[in-house]
């Protein structure tokens, strides 16, 4: 409960910060650009033709949701990768500012345990990122609904996937900030883990490029504990396009990301417990 109070406090503080406004503004800008610039005449034409000629028009006419799949896919990739990278940059100074002299002593004087402070910060940032992603994904879904008359919750699901993928990334960023109170280092750690997560998601394909033996074994061992982010991005894209998703694989990747986030938070908590301020 204390962790949730810390998270709520962080969200309250975020509302007054410039980068939160930048986050919301950027997403709004992208949505506005899409609303103005997206050329959907072909789809409009197909819709009109369907209305004009009735249901069946032969094999050359595809349903709107199929015709729009590339748009939905592009949206989900944008939300997932664009949102994650922007999120890393946007929240990188949050933990270092929390640990700033004067502020951290105040926080530690509150009746809140250190791990609760850490968890609360993590949950607050996660809520913020989820909110931003849902704003972007939901806005995109509504935009496409307005343009085409097709409701596809895919971009929203992609946003949820992006938030899941962000969990291990921010947990590592938090840990990095506890090691060295630096926004740049925290962001670098986040970017590195994000890249490592993309590599881990394709580790099977990459491993086959290594000679069987020690080099491959080392690569597989090194990438095994990392969160696999690529399957999450692919699942987000598939969900956005209403394509079938390999549920077991996606659930495995989600569980892996959450477990890794838990591991990184635990290690960060161990560091936080011993740190003198």
């Amino acid at each position, binding site marked *: 409960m204390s962790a949730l109070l810390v998270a709520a406090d962080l969200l309250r503080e975020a509302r007054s910060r410039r980068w939160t406004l930048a986050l919301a503004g950027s997403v709004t800008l992208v949505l506005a650009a899409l609303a103005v610039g997206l050329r959907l005449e072909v789809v409009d034409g197909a819709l009109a033709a369907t209305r004009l000629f009735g249901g069946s028009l032969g094999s050359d006419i595809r349903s709107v949701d199929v015709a729009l799949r590339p748009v939905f896919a592009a949206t989900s990739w944008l939300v997932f990768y664009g949102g994650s990278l922007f999120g890393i940059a946007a929240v990188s100074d949050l933990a270092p500012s929390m640990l700033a002299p004067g502020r951290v002593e105040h926080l530690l004087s509150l009746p809140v345990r250190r791990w609760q402070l850490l968890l609360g910060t993590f949950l607050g940032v996660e809520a913020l990122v989820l909110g931003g992603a849902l704003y972007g994904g939901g806005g995109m879904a509504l935009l496409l609904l307005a343009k085409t008359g097709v409701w596809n919750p895919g971009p929203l699901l992609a946003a949820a996937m992006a938030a899941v993928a962000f969990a291990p990334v921010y947990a590592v960023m938090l840990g990095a900030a506890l090691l060295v109170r630096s926004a740049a280092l925290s962001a670098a750690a986040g970017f590195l883990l994000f890249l490592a997560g993309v590599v881990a998601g394709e580790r099977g394909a990459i491993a086959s490029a290594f000679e069987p033996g020690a080099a*491959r074994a080392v690569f597989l061992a090194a990438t095994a*504990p990392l969160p696999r982010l690529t399957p999450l991005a692919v699942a987000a894209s598939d969900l956005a396009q209403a394509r079938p998703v390999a549920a077991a694989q996606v659930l495995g990747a989600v569980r892996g990301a959450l477990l890794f986030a*838990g591991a990184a938070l635990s290690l960060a908590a161990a560091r936080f417990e011993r740190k003198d301020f």
Partner: protein
Amino acid sequence: MARPSDRRTALWLLAGVLLLVATALLTILSEGGRPARGGAAVEFPRHLRAAEYQRIERRAVLPPLPPRSGPDEPPPTRRRDPLLAALPPGPSRAVVVLEANALRHSRLGELFLGCLGDADARMIEDLRRLGVDPLKDVDRVAVTPEGLAVSGFFGQARWGELFPGAEPAPYGGESTLYRPQGPAGEQLVAGVWRDQLLLLGTGREVQAALDRVEGRTAAAPPLREDQTYGEVYGVLPGEALRALVPPGGSGDLARRLGQAASRVELHADAMSDVAVTARVSGQDAAALEDLARTLGAALAVARVEARAGGDERLVELLEHARVARGGEGFSLELALPAETLERWFAGCRERAGPRRYPAAP
């Protein structure tokens, strides 16, 4: 005594490590442990092994040929293998020899026999009735563009019934020719030497082969004895590499491949894992080097594409594929571990039903 903060730190550290281990285990389990299996070692056929030396010695039953250049030259003491002697002469003549008996008792052979259909079973049974058990009596089969040479134990064979309508005629000292009746020409002629070697081909080729076996003409087989390792071995002319270029592909590329490689020596082990080595050699060392690099790159790309495309069979096939350089030319190595073979053949035996090929009497 540890402070409470130390205890908490230790607990958090332990939790962090355990969660990392759990993440790794989850990753490995969700992949079915597949990527890690790539490390299984497969031994490739690169030289004669002890059992193959003994095999060569057992098969050398022909007396050495008399010296050709003159009576002063010491006679060769090495006895000869009749099947190798029968092969058409020339270092780059195409020939592939299958160790039929060994293959029949290999893992691959067992799996293959388990998949035979009714028609194959009937054919085997028909041959047995005529005194030849293809699963027991056939030792080696050599395939050449000119015909076929089969070595084995054919003492029970009823040749007259196996080649109905053919006229038997003695040839040389210990051979018989079975010529079909009618106009001579490019008809299939069978030649049998000592009930141990069956030759099929045109009349001219079969007679020439029997002459080489019986020592009337010199033999210069495309394969030396020390190149008879593996369960399948042979030589292909460099032109055979043209088959690597897909139909409709660049004719220039096919020509360059043929020019760069003048000879491809093939060896395959198949008793458990199937491991194939293709030794490519040629006159132009630089062109061969380029060819080796090209094939290596093509294999690497194909491996990644197969993995990305989810083509599991191709992934497994390319897992052990590599280009090994060294010596003259290079070797292309491909392997299929026994467990992969069994997975590929899985269900075949059940689909074929009980005992589709007849057991040996």
